[in-house]
């Protein structure tokens, strides 16, 4: 068991009030605070924990995007990852980038780095796609343990407790595998001051999607972005008959 790839995504910080661009082509990202996707933080924490328990030797943090994503990789390094890979994607390619393109990149990297595990966050808080992990596993033809709330390595297999609508499901899958982290998997650590400083010396390799033989063409086009409709005031009624009459008039029943 040697290497784990962890995907980290740079997203708008969860506490920021999102504003839609005036031309409705997307949301305002310039000058807005960004940070690591919370589920990616949980993924990094899990990988670092596995390394501390000596199940794996090396954790590699990977992010795709323009130069700014190196900040996010550095945060991952400060949390305990050993090295980073920055896959450069910018401009129109970056705007059109979606789970399928990322999945292709990760699949290629997982093969290149001979990873035993790929750990991702279950979804990103900007697009809420919840697809990248699943697509990566499909492209690699690897088993997947998604929505993981508990991960245990057992020899060449991984026991994953998954959070599903009906409750908790426990599965055992062989490695190599793809895992996606859910909320309760762990509590991410704070980076310590010494680790932040050590992170400066850790290497971040640069590459382009073309180097991995990945074509970034997207088959999805964003037509328009709008704010959710403002909540309208409700109407109070006195009796049940009034309620039924109003619902009928509204066409609801």
């Amino acid at each position, binding site marked *: 068991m040697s290497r784990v790839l962890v995907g980290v995504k740079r997203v708008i910080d*969860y506490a920021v009030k999102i504003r839609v661009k005036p031309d409705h082509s997307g949301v305002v990202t310039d000058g807005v605070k960004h940070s690591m996707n919370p589920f990616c*933080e949980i993924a990094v924490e899990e990988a670092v924990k596995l390394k501390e328990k000596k199940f794996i030797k090396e954790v590699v943090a990977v992010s795709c995007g323009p130069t700014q994503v190196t900040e996010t990789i550095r945060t991952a390094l400060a949390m305990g990852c050993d090295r980073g890979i920055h896959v450069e994607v910018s401009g129109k390619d970056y705007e059109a980038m979606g789970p399928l393109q990322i999945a292709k990149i990760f699949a290629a990297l997982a093969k290149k780095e001979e990873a035993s595990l790929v750990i991702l966050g279950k979804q990103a808080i900007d697009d809420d796609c919840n697809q990248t992990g699943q697509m990566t596993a499909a492209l690699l033809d690897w088993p997947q343990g998604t929505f993981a709330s508990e991960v245990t390595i057992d020899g060449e297999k991984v026991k994953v407790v998954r959070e599903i609508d009906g409750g908790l499901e426990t599965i055992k899958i062989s490695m190599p595998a793809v895992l996606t982290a859910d909320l309760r998997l762990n509590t991410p650590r704070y980076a310590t*001051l010494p680790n932040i400083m050590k992170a400066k010396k850790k290497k971040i390799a640069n590459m382009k999607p073309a180097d991995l033989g990945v074509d970034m063409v997207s088959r999805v086009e964003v037509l328009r972005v709008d704010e959710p409709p403002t909540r309208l005031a409700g109407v109070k009624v006195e009796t049940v008959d009034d309620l039924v009459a109003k619902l009928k008039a509204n066409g609801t029943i």
Partner: protein
Amino acid sequence: MVCLKGFWSFLPYSTVISLSYTTRLYSVCAMRDTILNSLLAAAHGLSDEQKEFQKMAFDFAAHEMSPHMAEWDEKEIFPVETMRKAAQLGFGGIYVQPEVGGSGLSRLDTSVIFEALSTGCVSTTAYISIHNMCNWMIDTFGNTEQREKFCPELCTMDKFASYCLTEPGSGSDAASLLTTAKLEGDHYILNGSKAFISGGGDTDVYIVMCRTGGKGPKGISCVVVEKDTPGLSFGKKEKKVGWNSQPTRAVILEDCHVPVTNRLGQEGQGFNIAMRGLNGDLPFVSMVCYLMAIYIFFSSRFYHLLVRKQFGEALSNNQFLQFKLAEMATKLVASRLLLREAAVALQESRSDAVSLCSMAKLFVTDECFNICNQALQMHGGYGYLKDYAVQQFVRDIRVHQILEGTNEVMRMIIARSLLSESG
């Protein structure tokens, strides 16, 4: 790191008055976002590394300190466990050398960290900065044995430190202190008392400035007194207006025997050491102030001016309040710039460092107190209630104009420096 409770408990802006834990946490996070993003962005001009430190400190403050700030103040709790958690992240000896357990960062790095930490709790951050100052004094002026004996445990906060200079009879006129230290064989016998000692009675290591020689600053030496040394006792815990998360007591020395090996530096060097420690801490004292002001500023902006309506309009449409806000913002940016300049001057050991630090302390503490006070005013009656954090900040910040050199003493220092240059 990520505040998961806050993440899932998203509350709409309109729930201003409710002050549950989650609202507070969300509000701190929203504040943090604006602080980091806006015109007043605290992250401008920082290196990538410094941004990481700042982010980490903000997160720690938001999750580990801010939720408890009001309780610590009300119940006068000295938050030992939380501070030890901070120490695990390296906050026990931020600018202390790594070989004795410190983090080895610069003054500017440290000021950035304290800036962020104080959004969680002013009083606790102020104590952490005092602890760091004492740790640094031992690290810088102590010999190898002293550094190895004291610093590692101070860095992990297994032990806490206090700085003892002020006496009942000597505050601003610190060099006139009366606590004596008579040499007898291989021990000093200390007699005297110190007043207003932060942490006094609950800390383990006391850095005591005492008189080994004649009158004036040159007769003062600096000695480390450990808790439980016979002859070391404490006065009652003072009841203060603010800074309630740190106990303040008088430190009483009655025939207290301290080994000569506990003296830092040479005899007669004590005053110099004491002042170097304080000068180093000036940016931090002011920093704490500054950040509180910023916090309050945004609290007023978001949670009050934009939401509260009177005479049919939001308060933020009132031109007087708009102008007041503009003035507050301007003073805040000026404060931050002056503080950072002072921190850099200190780091580079520039000749104007002392003067700059004094100017920074004077300006920042005065202005930031005014800002917090104005913010309280803007909150109207609510500002006066203990349910709202504004009043705690006003109370906690008020003392910054007094301690570590009153603002009057700051003026003395600056004037002296100006007049000697022109002479």
